[in-house]
Every structure is written in structure tokens, then in C-alpha cells.
């Protein structure tokens, strides 16, 4: 039950120029149950790569095995692949077209050949999972807010009950609450339903907070493949690749330059807080207590930097 790419290359003709390689000799394997983050500079081939996973694009060379079967072999149904590998493009709300929210979410199951009753059942489950209230079912999707439209679009893919769910920048253009809702939804699907999530994002923080494995793309090639700590711990290499690391990692580096010696692969704010408090000799408090108390650290040594950086987080 895995996605296995071997030496995949995708070349395309460019008017009057040499054929360009959007992705160049990529081999990787994605096992079920992973939460993968794919990052890379603009034009690095991320979008091209993920479109191979569900068969929208066919590699110009190399092979692709899905669950052990040769996708490019005879008799393999690419349409069936669509059902098992769900895909959400950037700004997926632009694909909404039906007269009612329910009908639009039913579109996917309808294409799978399910009965209307089955379609509606799945659609309702999907809408509930994304947090769209029942009263919106008969509304026109065009009358919803941006964040709601996006969640309806995602429900449209979820209703097909895929094993893998690929999302290209699902949080683009959303406000912080909207972004958190989407990411928490993905985490829930991953943990509770065992869905394999593949997330393309430009936000290093989101990747660091949610992914278990990170793939770094650079000019069509797979540069790095590892856990978030392994990847973001190499700040210099990331910057060479035209990328960045989570802000908190940068902050830790800056602190290290000023004499501290924190671990360079800190990727989450919680970790940083614990490490800093430990270094300053304070007890590491349980999170809820620290939030409730108005804990002022401004009279500790070297502390102006602390409150500037962490403000009311502590």
C-alpha cells in the first residue's frame, strides 16, 4: 500500500528552446500513515511532482508503482487511482460549480458510480468532518465565505474517501484562524482515519508543526528527505536551496550567536520555550499554568531579548 516513484523525470517542450525538465530523476517511497510535507522554492517542481501521484501527469521516463502495481503498465486504470489518491489544488474553491453545497460535494462520489443515497451519506460525513454546518447544505456554494468555500471544496475530495490526500498549499490566502482549522483538520484525518497526508506548503512553521517527514525540492531534484528536525536543523543548507527555516529556529540560531548553546534543530515554539527557560535556570512549568499567570521575565538577565521575541507567549 504505497506510492513508489523510481527515477521519474518529466520533460516538456518549450517554444523554440531546449526541452526543460520540470522534475529530474526523482525516486521516493511514501508509505501509508505518513504526514509528508513538500517544500521548495517557486519553480522547483513541487506542483509537477504531486500531479504524478494521482496520475494527472504521466512521467516522460521512470516508473511509478502504486501498491505494487505498475501505474504506467497496461490495464491500470488511472481513473481508479484518482479515487484512492485525493487531490486538492491551490485555491480549490475555484472548482465549485453546483447549485447547492451538497450537490457539489456529491460530485466526486457520483463519478465513482455510487447511488444517490450513498453519495449523500458520504457528502454529509465529509461536510461534518470539515466543520460545515448542516444548514449550509442547500445553500449555493458561491454565497459562502472564502474559508467556508475552501472547506467545502476539501469536503468534495474527502467524500471520495481516498487513502492518500495531497494538498497544494491548502492554507493560501486564509486568515490565521482559517489556516489553523484546515491544518487541524488534516491532523485529525491523519491521526483518526489513518489517511496519508501530503502537504505542499511555503510555511516552514506549518510543516514543522504538522509533518512527520519533509521532502525538499530544488530545481526539479529531490534535495533532502528526512524528519523536520533533520531538515530544519541544517539551516545553512536550506538557505542555499532558496528556502528558510521556521522563525523559531532562526531565533535559536541568533541566541546561539549571542552565547547560548541551544540545540540547532529546535523547530517548534514549545520546544524553544522549554529550552530557554531551562537555560535561564527557571523551572519548566506546565503549559496551562504558564499561560494563566502573568509571568513577567523582564527582570532576568539578558531578558529584554526574551520579551521582545516571545512577548505574551510566556
Amino acid at each position, binding site marked *: 500500500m504505497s506510492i513508489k516513484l523510481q527515477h521519474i523525470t518529466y520533460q516538456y517542450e518549450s517554444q523554440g528552446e531546449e526541452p526543460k525538465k520540470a522534475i529530474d530523476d526523482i525516486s521516493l517511497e511514501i508509505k501509508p500513515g505518513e504526514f509528508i510535507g513538500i517544500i521548495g522554492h517557486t519553480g522547483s517542481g513541487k506542483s509537477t511532482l504531486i500531479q504524478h501521484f494521482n496520475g*494527472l501527469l504521466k512521467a516522460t521516463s521512470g516508473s511509478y508503482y502504486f501498491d505494487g502495481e505498475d501505474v504506467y503498465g497496461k490495464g491500470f486504470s488511472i481513473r481508479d487511482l*484518482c479515487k484512492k489518491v485525493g487531490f486538492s*489544488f491551490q485555491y480549490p474553491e*475555484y472548482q465549485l*460549480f453546483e447549485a447547492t453545497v451538497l450537490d457539489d460535494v456529491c460530485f466526486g462520489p457520483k*463519478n465513482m458510480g455510487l447511488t444517490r443515497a450513498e453519495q449523500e451519506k458520504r457528502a454529509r460525513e465529509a461536510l461534518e468532518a470539515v466543520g460545515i454546518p448542516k444548514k449550509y447544505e442547500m445553500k449555493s456554494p458561491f454565497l459562502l465565505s472564502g474559508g467556508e468555500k475552501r472547506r467545502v471544496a476539501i469536503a468534495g475530495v474527502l467524500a471520495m474517501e481516498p487513502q492518500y490526500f495531497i494538498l497544494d498549499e491548502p492554507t493560501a490566502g486564509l486568515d490565521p484562524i482559517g489556516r489553523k482549522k484546515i491544518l487541524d483538520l488534516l491532523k485529525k484525518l491523519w491521526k483518526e482515519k489513518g489517511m496519508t497526508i501530503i502537504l505542499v506548503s511555503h510555511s516552514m512553521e506549518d510543516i514543522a508543526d504538522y509533518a512527520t517527514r519533509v521532502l525538499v525540492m530544488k530545481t526539479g531534484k529531490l534535495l533532502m528527505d528526512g524528519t523536520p528536525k533533520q531538515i530544519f536543523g541544517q539551516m545553512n543548507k536550506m538557505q542555499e536551496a532558496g528556502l528558510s527555516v521556521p522563525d523559531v529556529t532562526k531565533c535559536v540560531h541568533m541566541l546561539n550567536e549571542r552565547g547560548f548553546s541551544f540545540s540547532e534543530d529546535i523547530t517548534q515554539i514549545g520546544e524553544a520555550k522549554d529550552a530557554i527557560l531551562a537555560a535561564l535556570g527557571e523551572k519548566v512549568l506546565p503549559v496551562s499554568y504558564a499561560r494563566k499567570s502573568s509571568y513577567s521575565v523582564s527582570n532576568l538577565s539578558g531578558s529584554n531579548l526574551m520579551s521582545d521575541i516571545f512577548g505574551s507567549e510566556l
Partner: protein
Amino acid sequence: MIRDITIGQYYRANSPIHALDPRVKIAGTFLFIISLFFKKSLIVYAIATIFLIMVIRCSKVPFRFICRGLKAIIFILLFSVVANMFFTPGEEIFHIGIFRLTKEGVTMAFYLSIRLIYLILGSSILTFTTTPNQLTSGLEKMFGFLNKIRVPVCDIAMMMSIALRFIPILTEELDKIMKAQMARGADFDEGNLIQKMKNMIPLLVPLFVAAIRRANDLAMAMEARCYHGSEGRTKMKPLRYSVIDGKAYAILGLYMISMIGASVFVTKFHLV
């Protein structure tokens, strides 16, 4: 997938023809096409051929590119040639069953195909050497006199350039929408005609919405930059005739005179 639509088949090159004012080229193409319908005679068409070859050479557009335009009409051409060759009454050369090949038929077919081919080649030169925006500018200037009878020429020209500008953008949008619906299991190849038309709805509705949304945004952006209609707007690159255009008009004039002259000459002296 849909990315290979080239609009107007403009071929970028640095030639005297490319440098001409679009008005000269539009007028030239128009006159050339008219000249194709003068007297059917070898001498007349020889002049036309020489002129056409000179222009093609001058334009630096590779011949095989120009011939692409001919692909579209190859069937019509073949059909008319055959129909004319075998069904024109006249002096018979040979026959196979009901198909009578006549001398008149051959002549008809020959001139018919020449006219059609030259017509396509002539118009292709226009589109290969003039960008769609240049064409719009040229047409706008040429039809400017219609403003006097209240035809909003400037606004029509603005609409045309916006439309041309957005064709590649909307094509890309359509590509994205198609892929998104395919990722939800839509199939655009299956079914009979009615089924196929129904399958277009998941494509057309989002596309319309996208187009209208863009139009809305564009209108706001234009207003924010004080656009208030096309009256009285000046151009960044106004069309101005230069010496090369004068020369081109002169050559055109010479060509038309020789074509007319040759036609008269041939008619008067019953030449071929």
C-alpha cells in the same frame, strides 16, 4: 495540455515586414486578395507569385511555418480541385466512367487552387508579422472615421486587446479547472454527444465565474488608475508612418498597377 494554442501565430523576427506600420500590412493584404480575382491568366498570376515570394523572403518567416496555414484548408482544396477537374463541361481529355477530365476543368482547378493558396499565404504573412495588439491598433486607426457616426471604435479596440490579453490566462485557468475536476473523477471523453455536453458544466461554470471575477478586478484596477472610457486617451506607442511605410505603399501601388495593366493587356491581346 491546452498550452499549445498559439494566438494569431505571431512569429518573432527582425524583418522589414515586421517593422512596417500595421495599417500598411492590413491594406496590403486586402489589396493583394482583391488582386487575386483579376483576370485568370498565367502572366497575371506570375506577377502575383513574384510579389508573394518577395514578401515572404523579406519577412524572414520560415516557409514551413507559413505552410502550416495551408493544412487547415487541404481538404476543401482537394475537394474543389477534384470537383472542378472532373465536373466542368468542356473539351474532354479522357474519362473514367462518369468522371470526365476536361481541359476547362483543369484550368478552373488550377486557378482556383492558386487563388485559395495565395489567399491563405497572404493572410498568414499578415498574422505572422503583426502582433494581435498591433493589428488592433491598426484597425482602430483605420476605422477611426466611424467615430463620426457614433461607432465607439476606441472602446471596441480596448475590448479586443483585453480579450486577446486574457486568452492565455483563461486557458491556463481552464486547464487548472479541468485537472481539478478530473482529480474528482470527472471524465470528459466518455458518453454520447449529450453526455459530453453535460460533462462540460463542471468546466464552464467555474470558468465563467473565474472570468467574471477577473473582469471585476480588472475594472476596479482600471478605475483606480483613472480610466473613464476610451475617449481622448493617448497611446504609448502611437502609430506613425515612417519612410519605410511610404516605400511599402509605393511598391504596393506599383504591384496593383502592374496587375491591372497586365489584366488589361492580356484581355486586349488574348494572351495566356
